[in-house]
Structures are given as C-alpha cells and as structure tokens.
C-alpha cells in the first residue's frame, strides 16, 4: 500500500471559551499554518488568532469607483458621441438623468466583484477536494463543536509534539488527516478528453440554440405577426370592396402632400412674367449644384451640357432626332423663370413633360442653373470684373 502524506493534526473543543483559549495557545506557541474551525463566527476569534484586518473594504471601494466611471463613460459615449439625439429637451450629456444608472452600476460592480474576489482569490474556492472534507472532524465542527487543525507544512511541525500540544490544551478526539493519494496523483490538464468533449458539447448547444433563436424562431408564428398583419396591401385582391381596388379613391379635389397641382395651361403663359411667379428657391451654391446635377442628368442629352442645343442623341447616329433650339437665344433670355419652369413641367413641341421625373423644387433649381449658363455664355463687361 502506498504511503499516505499527512495534511494536519486536529483536535476538538467543546465550548467557545475553550476554543478562544486554544487559539491563543496555538498562535503564541509559534505555529503559523493552523486554523480554527467553528460552526459560526465566534466573537474575538480574529483577535485571538492575530488575523490581519480583511482588505475587502478597499476592494469594494476600488471596484465601486471603477463601476461608476465605466457607467458614466458608457452613457457619455452612447448618448453624446455615438448616437447624439436630443430627447425631452435635455442636453446630450445630462448628468442628473445619468445618476440612477450610475448608482445601480456602482452597486452592481462593487458587490459582485467583491464577492467574486473573496471566493476566488481569498478562499480559492470552489475547492471540494480539501483533505478535511468528509472527515469526522469537519462533521463535528460543521454542527456543534469547535476545532483546531495544525498543518504538517508548518515549519515547526512534528507529529508527536503537535499531538501532545493539543492534548495539553485540552483537545478531545485528536485525529490525523491525510491527503487522498488518488486526488494527489491526478494531474489536471485542459487536454483532458472529458473536459474538451464537454466544452465542444456546450459550444454546440449554445451556438445551435442561439442560431435557432435568432434565425428561425423569430420568423415563426406568433413572432412574425408584426410582419403579417391583417391588412390590404397594394395590388392585393380586396376582401371588403367590390370595385376591385384595395386602396380607396380619395375625395375629389384631394391634393397629395408635396404635390401641388400645376394649373397653368399653354394658353395662359403670358401671365407667367407676373412677379407673383418668382423663383421661390434662392440661388445658393447648394441649389445651383443640385440644379447642375439634375440638368446634366435630364436636360443635357438633348440640350447639351452648355445649353447650345447640340444633341448627344443626334451624335449617337439617331439622324432623325432634331436638335432643340439653343437656350441662349434672345427669346429665351427674355423669358421669365416661371416660363422656363412651365416648359419643363408641361413640355413643348417634341420635348415631353418632366413633371413626373423632376420635383418642383428641383425644377426651380434647374431654372437657376439655366440662368447661370445663359449669363456665362452672354457675359456683360461688369460680370468679369
């Protein structure tokens, strides 16, 4: 049989007074690696064992301050930098409104962090394979007795001396505690097949579950009901109406938002020089740039980039296509803005209406750009000053 390695010698005491006396005795005898086991914290024991003050208070302070600053940092970055949006008229960095979350995160990080620090770093838990476990000794101290254990790794440890010493202190049930050989000989490695297998299983379950939840579950009934509501879609067969339309006809004379009807006919163009038909869009750089962009897209194929009327379509071997008149003739330069607008909106001769392609605002911008072209081609001396 393999020889067992001694862990400690233990002794049992009956009353709290005895155990305090014993603790003082063991610590003043010079033992360093010893421990007192009691079913509940006994007052004055820390003093008797000469234990230092627990550092957990400072740990909590540091963790709490960390939590508070991280919380402020998170809210500052998300609310004021990454996605700045004014809500309820509050400033982007609304400190009073950030206080509740800061407080909660302070408490959360301080308490969870301190508990974990205690369990992992101070206790080195979880550790369910300590030699003391499942000995008669620990069964007594976990219920109604008080115990002392002197560990064999102490410098001044000697088995017989320690036993005598405990006996002299008045201990009962003096016991030798041995390491479990099987436990000592087991080498723990992360390449353990069971451990790796478990890891793979967990990865598959968590990954598969997440995939299912995100990609499949949310598209199943009833989770998809936000998309599939009972409603009449455009082009769908109507359920309620006999006229074949799912969409109702608006009341006569209804005007769509942003689409004022253009009521001037070709016969009325004379009135377009009136001052009330002024270009409502200011000739800013922005508007001129947009006008240029849309002119180049919609107008330039026929009118040319400079308004000369040399059609690119004709150049592209479409001989039948007539060149439009130049935009720089005296007649056109004499037209009011509204008259040009009218031609874009209604069309003229071969030119079709562009009302469906170009919004009213864009038409006015194009008019500005045409005016710019005209002025550039027929510059007066004061223009080049």
């Amino acid at each position, binding site marked *: 049989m393999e020889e067992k390695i001694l862990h400690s010698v233990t002794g049992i005491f009956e009353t709290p007074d005895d155990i305090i006396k014993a603790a003082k005795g063991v610590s003043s005898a010079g033992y360093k690696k010893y421990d007192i086991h009691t079913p509940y914290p006994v007052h004055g024991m820390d003093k008797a064992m000469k234990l230092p003050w627990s550092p957990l208070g400072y740990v909590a302070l540091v963790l709490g301050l960390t939590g508070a600053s991280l919380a402020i940092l998170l809210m500052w970055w998300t609310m004021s930098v990454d996605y700045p949006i004014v809500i309820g008229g509050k400033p982007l960095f609304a400190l009073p409104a950030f206080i509740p979350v800061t407080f909660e995160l302070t408490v959360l990080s301080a308490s969870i962090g301190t508990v974990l620090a205690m369990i992992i770093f101070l206790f080195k838990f979880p550790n369910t394979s300590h030699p003391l476990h499942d000995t008669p000794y620990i069964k007594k101290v976990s*219920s109604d007795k008080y115990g002392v254990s002197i560990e064999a790794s102490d410098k001044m440890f000697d088995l017989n001396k320690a036993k005598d010493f405990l006996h002299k202190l008045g201990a009962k049930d003096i016991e030798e505690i041995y390491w479990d050989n099987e436990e000592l000989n087991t080498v723990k490695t992360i390449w353990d097949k069971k451990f790796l297998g478990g890891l793979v299983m967990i990865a598959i379950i968590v990954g598969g579950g997440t995939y299912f939840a995100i990609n499949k579950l949310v598209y199943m009934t009833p989770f998809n009901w936000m998309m599939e509501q009972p409603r009449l879609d455009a082009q769908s067969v109507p359920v309620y109406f006999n006229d074949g339309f799912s969409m109702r006809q608006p009341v006569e004379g209804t005007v769509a938002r942003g689409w004022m009807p253009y009521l001037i006919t070709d016969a009325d163009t004379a009135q377009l020089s009136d001052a009330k038909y002024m270009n409502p869009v200011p000739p800013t750089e922005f508007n001129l740039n947009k006008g240029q962009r849309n002119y180049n897209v919609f107008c330039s194929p026929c009118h040319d980039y400079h308004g000369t009327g040399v059609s690119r379509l004709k150049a592209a071997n479409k001989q039948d296509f007539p060149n439009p008149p130049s935009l720089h003739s005296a007649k056109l330069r004499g037209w009011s803005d509204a008259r040009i607008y009218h031609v874009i909106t209604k069309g003229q001769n071969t030119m079709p209406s562009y009302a469906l392609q170009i919004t009213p605002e864009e038409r006015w911008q194009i008019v500005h750009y045409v005016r710019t072209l005209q002025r550039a081609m027929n510059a007066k001396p004061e223009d080049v000053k």
Partner: protein
Amino acid sequence: MGIEIINEPSVIYGKPSLASIDDAIIKPTNEVPSKKYFMALSVTITMLLIGAVSLGLTFYKGTGLWGLKNPVGWGFDIVNFVFWVGIGHAGTLISAILFLFRQKWRTGIARFAEGMTIFAVMTAALFPAIHTGRPWLDGYLMPYPNQHWLWPNFTSPLLWDVFAISTYFTVSFVFWYIGLIPDFATMRDKLAKNADSITQKIKKVAYTVLSLGWRFSNRHWSHYEMMYLVLAGFATPLVLSVHTIVSFDFAVSIIPGWHTTIFPPYFVAGAIFSGFAMVQNVLIIIRKIFDLEHIITIDTLEKMNKIILVTGMMVGYAYGMEFFIAWYSGHEAESFAFINRAFGPFAWSYWIMVSCNVIFPQLFWSKKLRTNIYFMFVIGVLVNVGMWFERFVITVTSLSRDFLPSSWSYYVPSLIDFGILIGSFGLFFTLLFIFIRTMPVVSIAEVKAVIEGSQPTHHHDDEGH
C-alpha cells in the same frame, strides 16, 4: 436614580443545543412532506398554470386581450409589477438595514425574507417584460452594440427601471447565496460520503457543489463577516433606490396625480409596508407547519407588526399630504385628479386602499392584538390587498381622467388580466414551496451565533479567570 437597562428577550426561545438547531432547520428538507404540503403545492401549481395559459394566449394573440385601451395604457401589468417589487423590499431591508442596526431578532427571519425578495422580484420582472407586448425583443433594453447601431435612452425612467430591477435582483441573489454557503456545508456534512440511496447521493453532490467547499475555517469567517458588512452597506441604499426609481416611472411624467415629488419616499414606505405584511403572513404558516415556533418567535412577529404600524402611518401621511399639495398648488388638474380619486368612478378602490392601509393597521397599537397570531394574519392579508389597490388607484385613476375630458374612459380588466394576476401568485408561492423543501429556511449559522452560550464570556482576556 440609576439607568434601568432593559434586557432584550432572547431571540430564540428555550435553550436549544447547537445540534438540535441543525435538526430543526434541516428537517423539512429531509422528510417526505405531509399531505398538506402537497395540497398547497397543487393549488399553487394550478394557479401557475392558469397564469401560463393566460400568458400563452397573450403571446399568441397580443396584448389586445388585456383590458387596456386609451387612455388607460397601464393597467394590471404595471399594477402587479409595482406590487411585486414592493413585496420584494422587505427581504433586503431585513437582511441589510436591520443587520447594520445590529437587530438580532432579524436572524430568525432574514433568510426566508431574502428568499421571498428573490422570488418576488422574479415575479415582478415578468410584468415589464410582457408589458412590452413582444417580450422576445426585450434584449434591446440592454446597452450592447447591436446591428441597428442604436443605444437605449439612458435619460428615460423606464430604462432606469431595467437597471434598478436587474441590479436589485443580482445583489439580493448574491446576498442570499453568500448567506447560504455555510448552511449548505452543514447540510453536506450531515450526509454520508457513500450513501446507498440515489436521492441521498444527489443531495450530497448538490450540496457539495453549492457549498463551494466551505470548511468553517475562521480565516474564512473573518473575510466572510467583512464581506457581509460591505454587502449590507451596498444593499441598504440599493433597497431605497429601487422603489425610488420605480416611482420615477410615474413622477417624471406630467399626468396629474403622478407628477409629485412625494412619490419616492412614499413608494419606499409602501414597499416596506407591504413587504413586511407578506413576510409576516408566510412566516406564520411556515413556523406552524415546520415546528419552528421557538426559532421564529412571537416577539419577532410582534416587532414586524410594529414596523407595519409605522410604515402604515407613513403611507397614511403621504395620502393626506398628496391631497394637501393638490389643494395648495392651486393647480386645477391636480386638485381634480385627487377629488376624482376619492369621489370619482374609482372611489371604491380608493376607499378599499385607505381602510386597509391606514385604518386597520391602527389596531396594532394594542399589544394584545399585535401578539395574536390569527389577528395579525388577517391584518397582514388586508395590508397586501390595500397595497395592491394603492397601485391600482395611482395607475388607473390618474390615467383614466387626465387633462382632456374628451378622452376620459373607464378601465375594465379582462379575464386574461386576472389570469395573469393569479399566475403571478402561483409562481411566487410555487417557488417558495420548492425553496422550503430544498434549502434551510432559517440561517443555521446565524441562529447558532445568537443563542445563549454560543459566544465566549467576556472574561477570557483575564489570565486569572
């Protein structure tokens, strides 16, 4: 004339030995429970199933099944949420605030109250989650970098709630678990290493894992006690903050009857009031069924009744002060809101609230009545009914009649609403019954530390003794 020192009566009756405390507390977890236990459990599970069916229907069909309609968009869901969060306040108050005040009588009831806190907060957290209507999208409440590139609004009280409730639950849970570690170790050591029966084996493994390998070392107790102090220090402001933040959900809005600064203290007092009533009610049953009458003593219950009396009067003061401010402010909508509460279409709920919360607890002035088990049980039930109606009054009456008379309406909850309410009680009590059967409902280590003769006499410093 000397100063008379009043000796506190011992927390625990009789002079039980340490080992007998183990036995008394662990007994419910070892024995096959009585028929009464199973009957009670089947009732609560039935209630839970009613709730599950109601919730399933809600998920399938949508929140249209509830009684909510304009202008009352917050109905039973929010009322139940505030009610259950309130119930959850007693536990941490007992374990943290009373711990800091060195109130030894808390030891008998602390563990149980903490357990109740956790279950109550779990039940409460259900309601805001289902209130969103599409609870599977609730993950967006957490600030994480998502594919929408959106962040939650940190200036909204509803988001503060998310943080307050989740922090409160986590910290309460840790507090509870830290207290349970030595007790799990005691239970582990009561079981033989190589037991024959399979249940014993499962228990041994479970308690070994849960105790993390606790071995009653004083080097550990020293840190453990400091830890407990630190946690109590953090949990104390946390308890007060949680219902404060819940009250912000109402107080930060502009609805008349909600927009008042008295709400935070008023809500916290109400929460402690209802929480203590619930703890007292359940403890009365537990100590009777499991023969713990010498550990959860009548003195302890009497002290709880005193706290119920005090917090009940605070709540009563708040009711009065609300009326005073409504009149004193000269604000037409505000004064109407309160007159409407007392004499409007929901007057019945208002007077249930006032009688249960303010009038009946006054009977606790009489020592005879507050030490009578049956009487205090009835008052406890009434207080909880009253506190549920308080939340109903606040939420529903204010919403049903706000600034615009044209949109006024009456609120009628649907059957599904009642189903979910019943289910919430079912969930809470089912969890509680499972807790009673599997874990020590009284803190073994703490009770041992306060019984007579468990601490050294104070002469051990004199060598001549």
